[in-house]
């Protein structure tokens, strides 16, 4: 049992709801590698590791597997990381410059690939990730520029392109407005929860395709007092989360 003492907590911020929504991606994941990208997903992964998913493996962002206190417990250079991906014992949360209704993701370029209007990162590991281990996405600024009708280049494979591939799964998409999944008959993106303070209208206006919206959309769950303490005092005392999602 955890006893909360000291000054009363301020209510959760939007960034902290995002942390919770990311952490939930790794609930009941078992002894697998959590690969979070960006700023908020790593806070979420560490929160999951410290609370409801203690078996998770985490990296230091380079070649080491580390415990939450920073103690090295393993070695995972890039080539072993890429091999681990194909073994499937991993759940990655990637970013997306564009994502569409079936979960196709683009991080390579905007415009025609032959001569892009804006060159971005390149496909990176999105093709191998999406065919081999669960791949979720984190989008810190939900907008029509990101949630598009059709991505310019399919890097991460969506449900309409996956052809029922054996290990293809996109468990969730988390944005600063809500949580989305593909639990629909044709795997079209569905609104799974709204972060408190966000309206359905806001989400619809910031999405360039028709979202599936159930009759009852629950709010993203509140963090517990213990989770808030861990986020604020243990995992992210420097408040990096606020740099990604402001008040």
């Amino acid at each position, binding site marked *: 049992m955890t006893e909360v003492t000291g000054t009363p907590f301020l209510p959760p911020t939007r960034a902290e709801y995002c942390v919770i929504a990311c952490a939930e991606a790794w609930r009941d994941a078992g002894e697998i590698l959590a690969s979070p990208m960006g700023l908020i997903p790593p806070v979420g992964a560490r929160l999951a590791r410290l609370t409801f998913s203690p078996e998770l493996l985490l990296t230091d962002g380079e*070649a080491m597997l580390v415990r939450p206190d920073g103690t090295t417990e393993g070695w995972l*250079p*890039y080539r072993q990381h890429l091999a681990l*991906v194909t073994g499937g014992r991993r759940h990655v949360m990637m970013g997306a410059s564009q994502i569409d209704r079936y979960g196709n993701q683009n991080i390579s370029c905007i415009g025609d690939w032959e001569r892009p209007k*804006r060159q971005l990162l390149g496909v990176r590991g999105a093709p191998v990730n999406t065919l081999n281990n669960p791949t979720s996405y984190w989008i810190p600024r939900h907008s029509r520029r990101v949630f598009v009708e059709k991505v310019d280049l399919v890097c991460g*494979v969506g449900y309409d392109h996956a052809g029922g591939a054996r290990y293809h799964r996109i468990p969730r998409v988390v944005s600063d407005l809500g949580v989305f999944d593909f639990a629909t008959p044709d795997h079209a993106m569905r609104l799974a929860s709204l972060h408190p303070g966000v309206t359905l209208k806001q989400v619809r206006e910031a999405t360039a395709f028709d979202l599936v919206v159930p009759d009852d959309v629950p709010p993203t769950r509140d963090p517990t007092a213990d989770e808030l303490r861990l986020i604020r005092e243990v995992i992210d005392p420097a408040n990096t989360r606020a740099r990604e999602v402001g008040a």
Partner: protein
Amino acid sequence: MTADQVVSRLHSGMTLGIGGWGSRRKPMALVRALLRSDVTDLTVVSYGGPDVGMLAAAGRIRKLVAPFATLDSIPLEPHFRAARERGAFDMMEVDEAMFMWGLHAAANRLPFLPVRAGIGSDVMRVNPGLRTVTSPYDDGETFVAMPALRLDAALVHVNRADRLGNGQYLGPDPYFDDLFCEAADAAYVSCERVVDTAELTKDAAPQSLLIKRHTVTGVVEAPNGAHFTSCAPDYGRDEAFQKTYATTPWPQFAARFLGGDEQAYRSAVGEGS
């Protein structure tokens, strides 16, 4: 060897593999020497960082084989980006794992290796030459047949090496430097310090001996040879200089830092910081 001697063995039109990853342990002294030469029209094979950016900015790349180009702490490589946006070179854009298995295939003298990656993605659309292969066993699954990424030459940078070409990394990640050497007809290893063979394992475990001499053609002692990328544990990335690189127009950057030899580069860097 010297870096310039290495470059004298490279020719325009070659397929050149470059080790490291992003802005980490890139053989930058060798790349700088390459930029001093007139070798051009290259097919560059790289987990891209500023090596790709500089060669692209200088117009030396005919075709790039890469899954990305990045400066890590600066996510988008500005010169790679500009070159792509002006259609400066052809590209074989493949996934990180496809790239790795392409190197493995080359190192193992195989024409291809099957990979569960690429199918369903636009990697197949933008590389119409990629073929698939169906498992001959009961599962019948279809894979990408990733072609061998055979290299005419490879350039890599490690922490220590002996004169014979035994190369040692002392940082946390070998990246794929041994594979680049094995996949190449000629491999050139630059290092922070050339040491006697016996010294390699005096204070370091034998598994740090990443690169074997039978895969190496020449060794170059190049202190700070990965600058401004990282070369742990000898030094970290020079973030301030990397920012200068990323924000200075290329002609100005090249004139200020790349006009002379490696010593001139070092003093220009010293003056700039």
